[in-house]
């Protein structure tokens, strides 16, 4: 089971206030869903939902933003979600289905991805938004496709 590696995450995990102090596990069993189980659940949730779940509490935000979790998520979910992204040379036809969590958090490309998702979320294409993307966005997008999918 994947653990969060980053040191400061451990502090944030305490925000699950129900957690009793660690002791004899037989006599102090958890009256809550263990964080490892929550990690397993969240690693199977689609990216768009995960982004929303960042505001559940601090420990979830830390977990969801963690690069190791992103890798786990990608390896868990990629069998079930295929990216559907088609863009023609004139940018007049754009379609997005699914996408990796890691791609959303890679700062270099995240803004472009978010713009694409906005277009996708409305289920319609708006030429104005696509034109506002950087000139080399098409190239970067292709690069993402090759790297992550």
């Amino acid at each position: 089971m994947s653990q969060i590696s980053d040191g400061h995450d451990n502090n944030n995990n305490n925000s699950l206030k129900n957690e009793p102090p660690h002791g004899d596990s037989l006599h102090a069993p958890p009256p809550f869903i263990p964080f490892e189980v929550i990690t397993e659940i969240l690693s199977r949730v689609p990216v768009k939902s995960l982004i929303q779940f960042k505001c559940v509490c601090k420990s979830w935000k830390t977990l969801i933003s963690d690069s190791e979790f992103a890798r786990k998520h990608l390896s868990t979910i990629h069998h079930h979600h295929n990216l559907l992204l088609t863009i023609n040379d004139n940018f007049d036809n754009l379609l997005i289905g699914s996408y990796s969590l890691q791609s959303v958090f890679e700062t270099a490309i995240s803004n472009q991805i978010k713009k694409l998702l906005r277009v996708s979320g409305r289920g319609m294409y708006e030429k104005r938004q696509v034109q506002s993307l950087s000139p080399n966005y098409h190239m970067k997008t292709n690069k993402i496709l090759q790297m992550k999918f």
Partner: protein
Amino acid sequence: MAEKASESSNSISLNTVDGKIFKVSPTIANQMQTIQSLIKAYDSSRVISLPHVNAFHLSKIIEYLEGKSATTVSAVKEFEAQFMKDLSLKQLKGLLIAVGYLKVNELLELMPKTVAKLIENKSVEFLRKFFGIVNDFTPSEEAKIREEIAWAFDGVDED
């Protein structure tokens, strides 16, 4: 079913928080990692107390472990689907806690899939309630995050 005393002399006795004794075979017991380590640590003839695991949750876990081993590979998927379908939201949560505590690896694989499907379009408030999570953001922190990720909030289910 599971509560009937097994004739087998090496069965393991488990005592739930609500005072029911379950006798299970070592094969079943060893699929619960927490029990497995307790059997190793203590004399196996001793009754193992499980505070916070109630009879319902333990019986579901045993039902799953027995049911799964008794079915053919092709029937497992169907059995699993039916097993999960029969659980209410509240039962699902209680079972998750029990399964997490007892470390039933088989169910730790299956249940997250079901729960993930269940929560994918749920609101933040629903999730806090379901998982028993205290919102530790200040109102302004939460507002800021919501603003940053506002684009992701289309299509959330009503609670």
